[in-house]
């Protein structure tokens, strides 16, 4: 079973496959194709066409068209969006398109053309990106300068939708900010916390003011925020009206760390995204934050003793000066991973691919909360074949577990205490620790398949094998080509729905709702241990990448 994270072949493999294919057809085509692909160096064919905006249909001038195949060429479109590339040899080529303000179309399957006598003009599409811009004003309508603005967007990777910080900026002296080159989708905007920074002289030194952390349009936390929709080729406006609040001082100490070891102290909004606020820390663990606008925040501290991580966190509601804020660091318990391998053939339990000491499985814990419990997008991972099997540094929070065995093993069960990791998210609470217990078996099923013969055009795509009933257990993904189909080994016996997509990059396939609309085009199959089953699939066109 091959399950790669980004389902596409490398360019070289595509080229070789296509060259082989077109050589096979050479005998049928009247074009002169010599047996060696490199002997026809300049070729006598031309490729012409135009590049248009996929939303408006309007031509795009000065777009860069690059052609890859036996030879590499490039050209810019003219003012009417037309281009022409001459001296191409017959054969198949890939076309890349690029222009700032449009999403990069590199390696897109839609842009493959066969060069030959009958090649007509092509129409290539570029999807325009969008932008979000706005102004930060105070309640008096005056612009707020130097206010930090954060853009939170989501991306789908490996079938999972995750939110992360995609941009940050500061409002200029007119209060304006702008985020450009944004893929269409939903975004959240957050502003602050910040000071009325252009005023060094406070109106009254005793009551300096600042602005709290605010999520567009006007919510103190993310749950009350409204997402902003970015539509291809359009600019969305989002203005903030900030109410000045008093500023307070917060001080305290981080304790229970090894003297001489560094302590990291960071501040977050109450929704868990990192904010920039000046924290003064001393060697003895005491700290002060001199300018905290009134509001609710999270402080997180971490340090190390040996290779053990210590953590502490506290939620603060700041409505007055706060002294003696205490963060007591405590070790994060390790989560051991216990793997049991079951096989009818005892010799399989100790092979180069894996053994009881070095199980052929890797585990990932992916933060499930809207912005992750980690400031940066990160996943905690234990690799396959590693001797030490435990997670050492998992922040408390909610995670989705991704258990990935090496073929031919499949996961029969994976538990964390009472939680079934194959169907549910897991909550890691401070101080509590179970082991992760995994049972692997090697009597899995093999699934092979290909597309319906009615699918004529040569194509590639992704096969999705989703266990039924729908659960969080990972769908398995593999490439297929209309020529050779696909093959997956080491599947757990059971019921599945099998989908064949032309593009699955942006599909949130770990979410059963996202797959709902395609279910009627999927093929159900039941797999048995040690059996090979073959299916014939419909190609599902998702309409993406066109």
């Amino acid at each position: 079973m091959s399950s790669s994270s980004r389902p596409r072949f490398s360019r070289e493999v595509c080229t070789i496959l296509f060259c082989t294919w077109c050589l096979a057809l050479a005998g049928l085509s009247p074009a002169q194709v010599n047996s060696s692909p490199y002997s026809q160096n300049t070729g006598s064919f031309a490729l012409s066409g135009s590049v248009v905006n996929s939303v408006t249909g309007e031509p795009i001038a000065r777009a860069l068209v690059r052609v890859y195949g036996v030879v590499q060429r490039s050209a810019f479109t003219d003012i009417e969006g037309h281009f022409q590339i001459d001296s191409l040899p017959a054969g198949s080529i890939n076309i890349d398109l690029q222009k700032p303000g449009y999403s990069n179309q590199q390696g897109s399957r839609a842009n493959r053309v066969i060069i030959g006598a009958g090649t007509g003009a092509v129409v290539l599409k570029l999807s325009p990106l969008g932008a979000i811009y706005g102004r930060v004003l105070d309640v008096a309508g005056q612009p707020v300068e130097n206010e930090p603005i954060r853009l939170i967007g989501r991306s789908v990777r490996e079938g999972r939708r995750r939110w992360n910080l995609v941009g940050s900026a500061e409002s200029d002296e007119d209060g304006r900010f702008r985020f450009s080159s944004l893929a269409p989708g939903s975004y959240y905007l957050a502003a602050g916390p910040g000071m009325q920074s252009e005023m060094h002289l406070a109106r009254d030194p005793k009551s300096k003011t600042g602005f709290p952390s605010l999520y567009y349009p006007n919510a103190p936390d993310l749950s009350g925020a409204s997402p902003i929709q970015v539509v291809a080729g359009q600019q969305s406006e989002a203005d903030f009206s900030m109410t000045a609040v008093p500023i307070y001082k917060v001080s305290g100490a981080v304790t229970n760390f090894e003297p001489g070891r560094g302590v990291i102290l960071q501040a977050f909004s109450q929704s868990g995204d990192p904010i920039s606020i000046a924290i003064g820390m001393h060697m003895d663990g005491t700290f002060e934050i001199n300018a905290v606008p009134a509001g609710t925040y999270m402080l997180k501290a971490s340090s190390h003793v040996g290779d053990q991580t210590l953590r502490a966190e506290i939620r603060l509601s700041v409505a007055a000066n706060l002294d003696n804020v205490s963060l007591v660091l405590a070790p994060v318990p390790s989560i051991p991973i216990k793997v049991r391998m079951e096989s009818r053939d005892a010799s399989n339990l100790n092979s180069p691919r894996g053994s009881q000491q070095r199980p052929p499985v890797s585990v990932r814990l992916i933060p499930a909360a809207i912005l992750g419990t980690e400031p940066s997008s990160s996943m905690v991972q234990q690799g396959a074949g590693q001797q030490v099997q435990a997670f050492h540094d998992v922040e408390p929070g909610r995670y989705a577990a991704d258990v990935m065995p090496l073929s031919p093993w499949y996961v029969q069960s994976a538990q964390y205490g009472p939680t079934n990791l194959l169907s549910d998210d897991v909550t890691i609470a401070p101080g509590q620790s179970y082991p992760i217990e995994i049972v692997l078996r090697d009597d899995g099923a093999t699934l092979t398949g290909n597309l319906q013969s009615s699918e004529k055009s040569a194509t590639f795509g992704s096969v999705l094998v989703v266990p039924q009933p729908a659960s969080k257990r990972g769908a398995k993904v593999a490439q297929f080509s209309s020529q050779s189909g696909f093959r997956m080994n080491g599947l757990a016996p059971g019921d599945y729905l099998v989908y064949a997509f032309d593009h699955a990059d942006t599909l949130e396939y770990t979410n059963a709702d996202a797959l709902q609309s395609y279910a009627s085009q999927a093929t159900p199959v039941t797999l048995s241990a040690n059996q090979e089953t073959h299916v014939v699939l419909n190609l599902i066109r998702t309409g993406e990448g066109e």
Partner: protein
Amino acid sequence: MTLGRVACVLLFAAGLPAQTQPAVSTPATQGYRIAGVVVNSLTGQPLPAVAVAIAPTTPHGSSREVSQTMVSGNDGRFAFAGLARGKYSLMAEARGFTLQSFESHDAYSSAIAVGPNLDSEDLVFRLQPDASIEGQVIDENNDPVQNATVRLFEKRITEGQRRTSPINQGQTDDQGHYRMGHLASGTYYLAVSARPWYAQNDRSASRRPSNPDIQAHAAQEAAALDVTYPLTFYPDSEDSAGANPIALHPGEQATADVVMHTVPALHLRIHTGGGNSGPLFAIGKTAFPRVSQRIFEGYLDPVSNSPVSGNEPGVVQILGLAPGHYVVEMPASNAAGEKASNRGWYREIDLFGDADLNVGDAPSFVAVSGSVIFQGEATGPKNLAIQLSNPATGERFNTPLSDKGQFDFSNDTVRPGRYNVLLSSPQGFFFSKLSATGAKLVGRTLDIPGGSSVRLVGVVTRGLGQVDGVALHDGQPFSGAMIVLVPQDPASNLPLFRRDQSDSDGSFTLSNVVPGQYTVVAIANPWDLEWGNPIVLQPYLKGGEAAQVTGEAKLQVKVEVH
């Protein structure tokens, strides 16, 4: 008064005829007042809602914190009462008016002297409105240039000479727009550095077909995208000599658009020498070349849009350079355990095609080192530093002076040229004797020739002096004059100059003065004067006051303002 510094209070009563003073009505028991009106310096209109603040200046060289703040009324008036005798710095700030001090010029301003017989209640505080420059950077096809670095230079008097120096920079957004605000009036230039979005400067990145004909085509293809933009000066010049100045007035919102033109990119291959085995960027080795261009009057501007590639062993490639004249420097690599005998090297080259540079025949940086003895003391303080500054290129090199008196500029990229030598953060010390071998030292100016090592030897003595005084015009105290302490042989002793601005009572202080013979000059409206240029200074010297400054003593002078 110097911002952040202070003068000791010195009232010079003899020269002030009391009957011409307006009545000062505050009785001594209630304290004194500072009052006046804040106006827009451009329109003369009074400004309401301006934050105004005062901070007492202490006798020990630093101002205390703001002691009183208030907001000007609708008529622009402000008043602070109950003040003790002394001097106060006066500041104001409002939306559209950056924080400014009273009558400020450069780092100097006039403090308000408060006390009996002093007028501090009819002040007119002229606030300069902020100006801004914004515009768009486009390419020759009228497409916006994203992520271009726009650098702002100002032509102003720096260290007594009129020079064009960088003061700010910004980046263009996806529409090619940039904006720089909170600017004071002055003469500005813009320099834009960018790479075309479609540039592919690393030709080695494309696959190499085996067939030579295809290779030729591929090379042609690669060349079409191996382009760059030269450093471009507003509006459209690749040479700083052709840059148009932007004369910015107070409150003006200027627009300056720049057009970038594509040129074929050149590659510079630097052969770092086969002697060093191992990769160039190994851990512990930080050998990154620095490529700069000379712009304006000789300022060395680092090139920022050229990627560096280190794929081949022994060769560092600088890609994407536009044709022109460059200074290439390779600082000494600080590999652990490696002695500083590998001093690094530099070359000045004219690049009009791809070129190769061999390290072997490039001159090394100059090794400057030295030792001093501390007069009367076995060891000196621990945190003194020596500075070599080159006003023409804008380079400044600092190196610590050990408490045994040793120093070595081994980590610095010192090229031949003319440098000023001084103690940075002197803490009361100065060079009482200084001599050099390997270079010509006149006064505090060091002329370093090529291919040498320079040794400086001297004596460092404790005891800087101070000059306090009053600037007068027709017998009346003159506020806001520039006071310049001019050393003998001014052309060779720039580090010995001291400056101040006279306060509201005409008083001034020149501190940290190296003992010696000087002339004190007071100039009214001098703020565009090249005071460091001896020819410019000559006519004022005649009307100045001679001053013999000795260590740790305070000299008092009165100077006539011209």
